[in-house]
């Protein structure tokens, strides 16, 4: 580990600049309404430039773990946390993703929100998000990471409830924050365990200091970190907030709830590779959660009529793949991260084109009211198409390289568990193809089912250019990331080398063929069900139990309501009653017993002297009692 030199020493500017911009936008008030969105939108461009410069600067040196010490943050005896930043291969790919994809989405948002009177506030929050997210990935200790971690949670909350006058948006924001806080309990406890056992919370010691973790401690820390990761990344059992988060403006869904923030859980696990490596049990739990969530997301994605909710469930599912990958451990961390980057490209492309559709359809998002849009919105259709090909894993598009690698790695784990995980992942790929085909067909193909007052049109250029860039990345990004194993090699210092297993469980080409057949079946199923006959404008009734299950998100919301929310409300009411009647009642009752009726206490003018006297009496008795006790020693 070396200290930062040259342009690297300014790495804190990556956090400070967007934070400052956010402060300006939020504090300047209406004065900034005119230029605010431009400032907020374009500030990401120099940030991306700087991130690139940092990348080349780090690439040019041998020791690629660079620490920039900033100041002593919390020094209390043995607990000594410094604020500092770590530039290493892992954090660099994240700052490139955040400022790069984030920059494109910022520019798109300038167009998307051009008619919104709150645009300045939006960009204030959006910039604050970038600052917090960069802090999250650049922090050099778990405690500082926590600050960024909560910062992105806060901005996520603010942006989900951006249309705060809508009750649904306000509720969704609260739900997201509460779920995140459940995760925060895990993260907090993980840090406490680190301190209690190692006296430190910084990466330099815990991750790069050759600490020998015992199985128990590693499992305890790992499981707590995993709880935090599940909250942030919308993984089972904390996944239900993410589809609701689509209440926010679409650029928010693209940047925060698809490309970056929700992948922070994967970052956390990959960053803590040294700890997860030390506990096989914890990694098994990670893979199980990944497998459950990837299937959950797929199945729930099939039953949504709201295009953004389809994509949100698909995000849940894709992050499930990433969890599965990082849970497989040594050698597969990098694969998970590469899928994370690829997913950042294609999911952003999908969301931005969904936003373009919404923009054109007067903010309506019900796919049953779309149809035939490819004619009027060719660019949007093309970009959505690129994202579609990428996510289903069409040959040579991004998902083909990145997702199929995860399926392969799952089978390669070996044994029964390898087969179970591999089949889950394979099944997920098929269902993904099904629901994405459904979404594509219902939105862009078939007959128009528009309501009378909409006149769809292609989006302005400030929106289409970023979309096209992301569309192109969706097609070729996967190949760029995987070709020659460059990214894997680059990530080696952070997460260890990728291991090409000599003998695959299933021959590589056979598996590719199987995967393609499964995907083709999914596509065909989607086409047969939705492309060959008219789509009704209202959801059909009397459907099969499977469809109901999917539409109701596998009853996850109903479960939460019945098991957490209602009992919580009952408990709250019971405690309020108990405190008013029980604890306070005893006090008032005692006072009434002395004073002759609680009304006496309320009419204090009358009761004053007596109460005072009684209290004096009580006090005197206590004095005497204590003095007696003292005397008898």
């Amino acid at each position, binding site marked *: 580990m070396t200290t930062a030199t040259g342009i690297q020493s300014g790495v804190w500017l990556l956090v400070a600049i967007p934070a400052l911009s956010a402060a300006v936008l939020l504090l300047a008030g209406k004065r900034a309404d005119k230029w605010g969105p431009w400032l907020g939108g374009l500030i990401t461009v120099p940030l991306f430039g700087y991130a690139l410069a940092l990348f080349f600067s780090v690439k040019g040196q041998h020791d690629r773990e660079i620490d920039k010490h900033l100041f002593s943050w919390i020094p209390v005896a043995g607990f000594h946390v410094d604020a500092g930043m770590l530039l290493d291969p892992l954090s660099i790919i994240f700052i490139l993703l955040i400022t790069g994809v984030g920059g494109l989405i910022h520019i798109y948002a300038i167009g998307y929100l051009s008619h919104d009177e709150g645009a300045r506030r939006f960009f204030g929050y959006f910039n604050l998000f970038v600052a917090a997210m960069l802090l999250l990935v650049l922090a050099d200790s778990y405690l500082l990471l926590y600050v960024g971690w909560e910062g992105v949670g806060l901005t996520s909350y603010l942006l989900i409830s951006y249309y705060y006058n809508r009750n649904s948006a306000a509720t969704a924001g609260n739900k997201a924050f*509460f779920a995140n806080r459940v995760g925060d309990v895990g993260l907090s406890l993980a840090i406490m*365990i680190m301190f209690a056992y190692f006296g430190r919370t910084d990466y330099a010691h815990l991750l790069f200091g050759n600490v020998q973790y015992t199985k128990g401690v590693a499992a305890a820390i790992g499981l707590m970190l995993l709880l935090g990761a599940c909250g942030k990344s919308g993984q089972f059992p904390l996944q239900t907030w993410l589809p609701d988060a689509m209440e926010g403006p679409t650029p928010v869904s693209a940047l925060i709830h698809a490309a970056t923030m929700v992948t922070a859980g994967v970052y956390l696990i990959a960053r803590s590779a040294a700890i997860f490596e030390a506990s096989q049990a914890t990694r098994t739990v990670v893979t199980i959660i990944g497998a459950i969530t990837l299937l959950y997301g797929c199945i729930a994605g099939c039953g949504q009529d709201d295009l953004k909710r389809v994509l949100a469930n698909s995000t849940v599912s894709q992050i499930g793949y990433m969890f599965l990958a990082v849970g497989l451990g040594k050698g597969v961390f990098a694969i998970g991260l590469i899928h994370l980057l690829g997913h950042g490209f294609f999911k952003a492309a999908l969301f931005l084109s969904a936003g373009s559709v919404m923009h054109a359809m007067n903010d309506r998002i019900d796919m049953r009211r779309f149809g035939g849009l490819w004619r009027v919105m060719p660019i949007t259709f093309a970009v959505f198409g690129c994202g579609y090909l990428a996510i289903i894993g069409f040959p040579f598009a991004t998902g083909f390289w990145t997702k199929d690698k995860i399926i392969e790695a799952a089978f390669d784990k070996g044994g029964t568990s390898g087969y179970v995980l591999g089949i889950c992942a394979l099944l997920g790929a098929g269902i993904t193809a099904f629901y994405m085909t459904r979404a594509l067909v219902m939105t862009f193909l078939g007959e128009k089912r528009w309501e009378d007052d909409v006149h769809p049109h292609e989006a302005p250029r400030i929106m289409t250019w970023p979309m096209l860039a992301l569309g192109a990345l969706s097609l070729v990004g996967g190949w760029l990331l995987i070709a020659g194993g460059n990214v894997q090699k680059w990530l080696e210092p952070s997460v260890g080398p990728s291991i090409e297993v000599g003998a695959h469980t299933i021959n590589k080409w056979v598996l590719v063929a199987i995967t393609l057949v499964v995907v083709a079946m999914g596509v065909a199923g989607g086409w047969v069900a939705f492309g060959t006959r008219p789509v009704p404008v209202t959801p059909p009734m009397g459907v099969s139990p499977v469809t109901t299950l999917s539409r109701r998100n596998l009853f996850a919301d109903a479960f939460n309501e019945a098991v957490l929310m209602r009992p919580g409300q009952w408990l709250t009411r019971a405690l309020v009653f108990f*405190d008013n009647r029980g604890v306070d009642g005893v006090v008032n009752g005692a006072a009434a017993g002395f004073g002759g009726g609680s009304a006496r206490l309320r*009419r204090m003018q009358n009761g004053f002297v007596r109460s005072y006297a009684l209290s004096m009496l009580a*006090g005197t008795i206590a004095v005497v009692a204590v*003095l007696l006790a003292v005397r008898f020693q």
Partner: protein
Amino acid sequence: MSQHNPALLILTALPLVGALAVFSLREAQAKLAKQLSLAVSLAVLVYTMVVLFSFDTKGDRFQFVGSWTWIKAFGVHLAFGVDGIALVLTAMAVLLVPAVILASWNALDSRAGSEEAATASGRRRSVKNYFGLILLLEFFMIGVFTAMDVFLFYVFFEAMLVPMYFIIGSFGGPRRQYAAMKFFLYSLVGGLLMLASVIGLYVTSSVKTFSISELIAHPMPDNTTQKWLFLGFFIAFAIKAPLVPFHTWLPDAGAEAPAGGAALLVGVLDKVGTFGFLRYCLPLFPDASRYFATPVLILSVIGILYAAFLAIGQRDMKRLVAYTSVAHFGFIGLGIFAFTTQGGTGAVLYMVNHGFSTGALFIVVGLLIARGKSRNVDDYGGAAKVTPILSGMFLLAGLSALALPGMSTFVSEFLVLVGTFTRHKGLAVLATTGIILAAIYVLYLYKRTFQGPVTEKVTRFHDLNAREVFAVAPLIALIVFLGVYPKPVLDVINPAVKQTLVNVHKSDPTPKYGTAAGGTK
């Protein structure tokens, strides 16, 4: 011991002089009374800052010590002095006073800033007396933190409740008299128990003195007497703090007091309780403190969770904020009785932060209530649209109450939790789940008042004016600044906490796999 540094005597007396001057004004000179009070409170603030910055963090535990004989027969002295703990709490108190004065500027006018709807009868309330009482309260508050003589402390401790009693009883809401009486009775019971213990302490101590530094230097033998005396002090402080189950006076007092008074009541007066734990219970009765630590820790954790649930269930906004404070006092109690440097330092920083954060929260809630003339959340909705500045301030104050990382409240809460965890894992885990409940009570309140469809009543609200912004903004700025850079304050607090732990014969547990360097880089 014959030090006669008058710095703190002057500091303590300054608001008293101001209060007398304000009381002596005529009722018609209301405006002058406000201006004079503000000027005095700002002068006190500046003076305190000077003291704060000349405090030597590497020097003696007690500094600026000045002592003059008061009652010779019993060795009572007018003794003043501060350690790092008392100093930061004094600074917090004197910072909050000008904010409260600014926020209450029009609070007694029948029209603009009053929290109640104007009634036909329209009580006439003396403006100058209100501001005079605030300054008088400031005098007692400073005195209670700077007193270096147990008897003097007791006098300030008891006297403090008089101005607060009148602030609640004369200037409060509809049930003010019930609330004031309840506050008075609770405090009085606690005070009398303490008086008994103060006397007991003098009688049984080997040095026959009330001087705190002398008493710390000559701890009592470990026996039943020590336990009884500890309990006397402890219950008095637990009522003041308040710790569950001694808390039921606070929601009534906090709800009925005018918002500014509530800010001082919860922000400062209640800190005297937790300050008392650290300054009196621990060093004077070290063995008893250790003996009773476990029940206190358990009560603290119960308080954190129980009061948080109660806060979630409230519809009266001021009661809600009062309950959040009860939960926060649980954290402070936890930090103090965990007997670790992190826990203790966290607890003291928590007291400071909580003063700012809850002070700010009470003030913004008061500003909202002054617009809507109702404390019930159901009467609001969608106010962010109409009053964006108030909404932003409200949210920031709320976020500091839920200890958002990046704000100073997080630093203190995390220190308390981590300090507790190293010694009591189960309790720390339970307490940590409190952070979920904190998010719920803050954001659920914000949702019901500022989000959702705009109600008809809310459309007539006006946003904050410059004076109101100046009342709250500095508090929030400070919370954010100390979240990023808490070191200066931690450095002041730390030595005093370490010495307190030496007094109770406790040292931090060492990390099992720790490095020899003890974790410093």
